[in-house]
């Protein structure tokens, strides 16, 4: 585990967030914050609305009520046209990767760069692409199509596409799910690298306790649309709470600290 961030300024503040689909209330008065420079791990059962939460943050979904403040801007009530500036500050790693199937890796990475408000030169774009691919350890994949890549490679490429625009905030949706332990660990280390290198504040959704152990400065657990528990890693590992234990106990023997 890396040093917890000392700065306590909040980059994201969420108050009383509610959203439902039809009869189903998914988020029901959720309140949380993301502090500057920290890696915040979000745990929770499948279907508790973790993906919905970060989609509300970038307003791919509009919450029914509540407040989402991102570096001073109120996102949930903001005009659609003004969203662009807020979204520029946020990198979003999709659970499914969401690489553009019809484009090569290079075109995938060019896509966000070429459509920024500030125009940058072609050489600069190519340098950035090379750098981003080297950061994720896949410089050779540059002219491949997404369909030619393995699941782990796709995850890395979409990570590269996300960090290439230097976001201040990163939202990772299950970055290690479906990967072997070695690759998972590499991705977790990559998340830490990104935190250090780009000084990002991140929300990491994961079911992978090893990943949580590697990246977390702080954790929250969602349950029934609210924050069920919030705290540091050791508070999650040494607790009597049955629900929290069900996540950590089964893996405790693999706790690196005990090995």
């Amino acid at each position, binding site marked *: 585990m890396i040093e917890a961030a000392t700065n306590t300024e909040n980059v994201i503040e969420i108050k009383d967030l509610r*959203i439902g689909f039809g009869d189903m209330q998914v988020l029901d008065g959720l309140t949380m914050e993301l502090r500057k420079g920290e890696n915040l791990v979000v745990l929770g059962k499948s279907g508790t609305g973790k993906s919905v939460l970060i989609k509300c943050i970038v307003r*791919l979904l509009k919450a029914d009520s509540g407040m989402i403040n991102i570096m001073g801007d109120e996102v949930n009530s903001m005009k*659609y046209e003004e969203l662009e500036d807020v979204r520029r500050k946020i990198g979003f790693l999709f659970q*499914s990767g969401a690489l*553009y199937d019809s484009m090569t890796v290079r075109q995938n990475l060019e896509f966000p760069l070429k459509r*920024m408000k500030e125009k940058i030169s072609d050489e600069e774009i190519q340098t950035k692409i090379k750098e981003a691919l080297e950061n994720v350890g896949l410089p050779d994949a540059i002219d491949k199509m997404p369909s030619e890549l393995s699941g782990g490679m796709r995850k890395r490429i979409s990570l590269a596409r996300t960090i290439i625009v230097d976001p201040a905030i990163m939202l990772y949706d299950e970055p290690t799910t479906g990967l072997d332990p070695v690759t998972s660990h590499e991705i977790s280390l990559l998340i830490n690298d990104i935190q250090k290198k780009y000084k990002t504040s991140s929300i990491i959704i994961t079911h992978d306790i090893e990943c949580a152990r590697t990246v977390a400065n702080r954790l929250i657990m969602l349950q029934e649309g609210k924050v069920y528990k919030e705290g540091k890693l050791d508070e999650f590992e040494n607790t009597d709470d049955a629900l929290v234990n069900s996540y950590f106990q089964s893996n405790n023997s693999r706790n690196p600290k005990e090995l």
Partner: protein
Amino acid sequence: MKKPITKIKTYARRKTEGLTDETINRKNSFQKFLIDVADVFMFVATVFKNTFARGFEFKEFTKQCFQIGNKSLGLISVTGLIIGLVLTIQARPVLVDFGAVTMLPGMVTISIIREMGPVITALICAGKIGSSMGAEIGSMRVTEQIDAMEVSSANPIKFLIVPRILAATLMLPLLVLYADALGILGGWLAANIKGDVSFILFITQAFGDVEFGDLFPAIIKTFFFGLVIGMVGCYKGFNAGRGTESVGIAANSAVVMSSLLVIIVDLIAVQITDII
């Protein structure tokens, strides 16, 4: 189901009119169709606004033009030719009875240019282009690629939708002209089965009877056919639901709706030219 933010306009309209998805499900299929059509136009209003926004995706536009032409050319060649053949073979005996065989080229040409060429080409394109747009954009929606574009603050409507609709609007008239030409060629071939007409004579006779009033409205309406096909294909794909089955639904309903709208636009066009 909650609509993503890009769909908020149509969703908001439904909400203000008390048309939730449940009440829509209770409507009969004709009312549903009308609601769908209204949504398409709302969608188009958004698209239209984006057409003139900064940064036109010219590369994507030319790519789409090429794909539309490339995809449908073979099919349109065959049907165009056969339509010409069939029309001529069927009309000939009637004209012979009236002793008016010299009118054959003109009659065939006019019916190809005014009606058969545009409508049949448009219906083929509704099947071919409409379904592929619905499926392509639908699968991008389902696999979150459209969401990914949106969060990287690249406007998916500008990149995906505007070029496709413009390409369809521009390419359909060209494809229709091409189908017309092959239809007339087919007519000449058929005329040669029974009689012996030189190509030059056939063409002279054919276009001797064609007036500007035959050609012009026919071409104008093909732009609208293209617009309708592009619009519906993109709309259905863009508003695809969640889950892979939505891709099939999007493709299928794009074909159904655009075919139907092509026929309706044709009816309206006939009424308008009739008045003029």
